[in-house]
């Protein structure tokens, strides 16, 4: 049963600490999205990768957020230093894109709920 795996599911950290969220996309998918969900902002696109190359990270606060894809089985989203306003659910999604659109759908992980105190 192919699925997108995100770790950790929950994270509570103190302000100023580094936070790393991990995502294992579905094998064979060439595109990975990172989203942030808050009550006020809905689902915001933070960054996305195609064939491991970052295509757009304009949605991320550059001074503290970074996203990487060190290999085809792992995508990471890092926040350093974390702030209380970063508290949200962070979703990773993967899909197979041919041309400009998904071949089927974007499959979502279960999200990481981050609380910064």
């Amino acid at each position: 049963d192919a699925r997108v795996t995100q770790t950790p599911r929950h994270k509570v950290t103190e302000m100023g600490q580094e936070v790393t969220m991990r995502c294992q996309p579905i094998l064979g998918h060439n595109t990975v999205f990172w989203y942030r969900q808050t009550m006020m902002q809905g689902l915001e696109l933070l960054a996305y990768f195609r064939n491991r190359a970052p295509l757009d990270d304009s949605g991320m606060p550059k001074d503290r957020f970074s996203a990487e894809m060190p290999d085809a089985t792992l995508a990471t989203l890092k926040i350093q230093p974390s702030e209380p306003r970063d508290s949200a659910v962070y979703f990773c999604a993967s899909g197979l894109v041919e041309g400009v659109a998904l071949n089927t759908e974007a499959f979502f992980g279960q999200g990481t709920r981050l609380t910064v105190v």
Partner: protein
Amino acid sequence: AQTVTQSQPEMSVQEAETVTLSCTYDTSENNYYLFWYKQPPSRQMILVIRQEAYKQQNATENRFSVNFQKAAKSFSLKISDSQLGDTAMYFCAFMFNDMRFGAGTRLTVKP
């Protein structure tokens, strides 16, 4: 960047009735894809239905159907015979290179 607008923050419907959720988008592209996702309290994102912009026929999946009006850039979701399990947040999404979502509509199905 493309934008997606869902103008109904909350809606409710009686069980077994029909409800329509609205979505509009802004793009200059001609070929793209549109999606409706459902997010129940478990927060798992579940695909409900998808529509390819080059197809004139509206997509249907069992009780779910869309009204796709390309010229008007409108993509509404109709849920027929609503069930209690349909209670969830519903997100409209637009795909062209990246994938962007609307703010969501919280749907409550009442017994």
